[in-house]
């Protein structure tokens, strides 16, 4: 009796050990990747925020709160708020364009759905920088848009289409629209078409049906799409650099400049931390509302 329980226990503990080993084998690579490439750099970045800058870059290990007070300097705060604004506008436009697109794709016959979805992700097959440069060619003074408008006689001299905030928003919407369409499509596709019929049957017109049934039931998709567009837009520095004329308009450029031009690693880290904090708050808000929906 005692013997048998004893051996049973040892069999069980051996089984437990081999299960733990199995987990380690599967989790190991991913965990290593996360620790080495995400957690350690993040810890370094956070630790930099409380030290002084070195004269030629790097860190001087003297504690200070100066970096955080500088964050609230109107100059920098303005850049953060300006980035929030541009990212929000880009997200809103992407939603207004993306929702009808996703809705129409969801109504297509199965064969065409696949083709349409491939078309949506097709731009990702081309290099991001190349696509942004293409916009410069399109929008520049002698570019395609201006020359067409001039040929049509609609304008006398080229419009200044490049290097303003509108160009940045255009670039952001263009780049991240697929990330809006895909989650929206998933949410709309999942919606039982009979619910819309039931709504109509109960006397609701198309607008009322959209507001009371379709939109509330696809809200999780809307939030996911908005997050997918907002997050890369907010911290973006390539698009404002190339399409915005290289001025530090968005927080991404500011951070890049702190590290590469001003050589102020601690303040760059602080700005980066502020950006991460804003995004975490947004992610939590999204998770909370998705759970309620």
């Amino acid at each position, binding site marked *: 009796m005692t013997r048998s329980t004893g051996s049973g226990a040892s069999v069980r503990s051996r089984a437990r050990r081999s299960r733990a080993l199995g987990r380690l084998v599967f989790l190991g690579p991913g965990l290593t990747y996360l620790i080495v490439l995400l957690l350690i750099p993040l810890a370094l970045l956070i630790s930099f925020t409380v030290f002084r800058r070195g004269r030629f870059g790097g860190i001087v290990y003297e504690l200070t709160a100066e970096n955080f007070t500088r964050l609230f300097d109107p100059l920098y705060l303005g850049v953060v708020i300006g980035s929030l604004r541009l990212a929000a506008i880009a997200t809103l436009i992407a939603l207004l364009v993306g929702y009808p697109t996703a809705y129409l794709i969801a109504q297509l016959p199965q064969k065409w759905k696949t083709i349409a979805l491939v078309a949506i992700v097709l731009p990702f097959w081309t290099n991001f920088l190349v696509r942004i440069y293409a916009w410069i060619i399109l929008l520049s003074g002698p570019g395609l848009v201006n020359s067409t408008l001039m040929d049509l006689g609609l304008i006398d001299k080229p419009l200044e289409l490049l290097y303003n905030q509108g160009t940045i928003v255009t670039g952001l919407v263009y780049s991240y629209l697929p990330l809006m369409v895909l989650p929206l499509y998933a949410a709309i596709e999942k919606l*039982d078409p*009979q*619910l819309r*019929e*039931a*709504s*109509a*049957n*109960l*006397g*609701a*017109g198309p607008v*009322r049906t959209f507001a*009371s*049934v379709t939109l*509330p*039931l696809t809200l999780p998709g809307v939030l996911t799409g908005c997050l997918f567009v907002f997050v890369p837009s907010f911290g973006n520095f390539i698009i404002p650099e190339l399409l915005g004329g290289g001025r530090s308009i968005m927080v991404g450029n500011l951070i890049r400049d702190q590290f590469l031009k001003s050589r102020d690693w601690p303040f760059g880290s602080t700005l980066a931390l502020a950006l991460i904090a804003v995004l975490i708050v947004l992610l939590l808000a999204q998770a909370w509302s998705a759970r309620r*929906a």
Partner: protein
Amino acid sequence: MLKITGVSRRFGDVTALSDVSLEIRQGEFFALLGPSGCGKTTLLRILAGFESPDEGTVTLDGDDLLGQAAHRRPVNLMFQSYALFPHMTVAKNVAYGLERERLGRAEVRGRVDEVLQKVGLETMAGRRPHQLSGGQRQRVALARAIVKRPRLLLLDEPLSALDKKVRAEMQLELKRLQNEVGITFVVVTHDQEEAMSLADRIAVFNAGGVEQVDAPVELYEHPRTPFVAGFVGANNIFEGRACSAGLAGEELGILPGDSGLPDGTPALLAVRPERIRLDGEDKGVLGGEVVDVSFYGGISHVSVQVSGRRQPVLVATQGATQVQTGSKVALGWAEGDGVLIPQ
């Protein structure tokens, strides 16, 4: 009240409905019965406004129905899947249709409470659909459809998602409700027992057309087409030609039947299993050997192999039977129990 005239609908090469005409009376419980794919659901969707016919007209109390958008029709549909709004409570689901009518808040509440009470769900008003059982969801769907007091209520396979016991309960309840609210009900079903027990009249559909429209008893006793004879209830069907005494079969001889057909018309003779007597060895019109006996509690089914006929003849008897597999029996039935159907 509801008049359907010459309605046809094709989907590509498939004809879902061909030249369907029906007249449904005020306050009637009407069933559209047929196998799946026979077009009955298409007709229901046309009435609800989700589908348009290629030809034909539909009028409700004399008003053209087809010209009205789905959300303007005084017709409500109870969906087969119930299609309850998952993000709304039971009360909100039921109130949805009333809120579209711009009624006062107090009246909406009053009517919602009243109808929830009627279907026995007054304690569930605050629940979401996923917190309810199948039978409760079905009742919410019904409440949501009748709360608008439509002139016509359509029910698409209303009980198919329920298990057998709940289904029997809900059948009674549906019938009671229909009596109470006095709305004309049109129910689509493939379940003939459901149609028989619920409906005042039944239209049997087959391949996009109406085969027969009759009261349940009439439909069962006097099927008028070969399809109805085979589809509604169990039947023993014999082939042959009509004669004065019934049907002259090629190999089976004269079989008794209630013939109103001219002599020599190619015809089918249908005899219900429960109308056939097992008379022992020599009396009767057909002789055969018992190949199977199944006891179902209230009744027993006896299969009799008759020479000259491929399929065994099915006989239903009350309670348990004394007949055993392998014994020789003679089968007989009264002339009035053999129904002749022209082929």
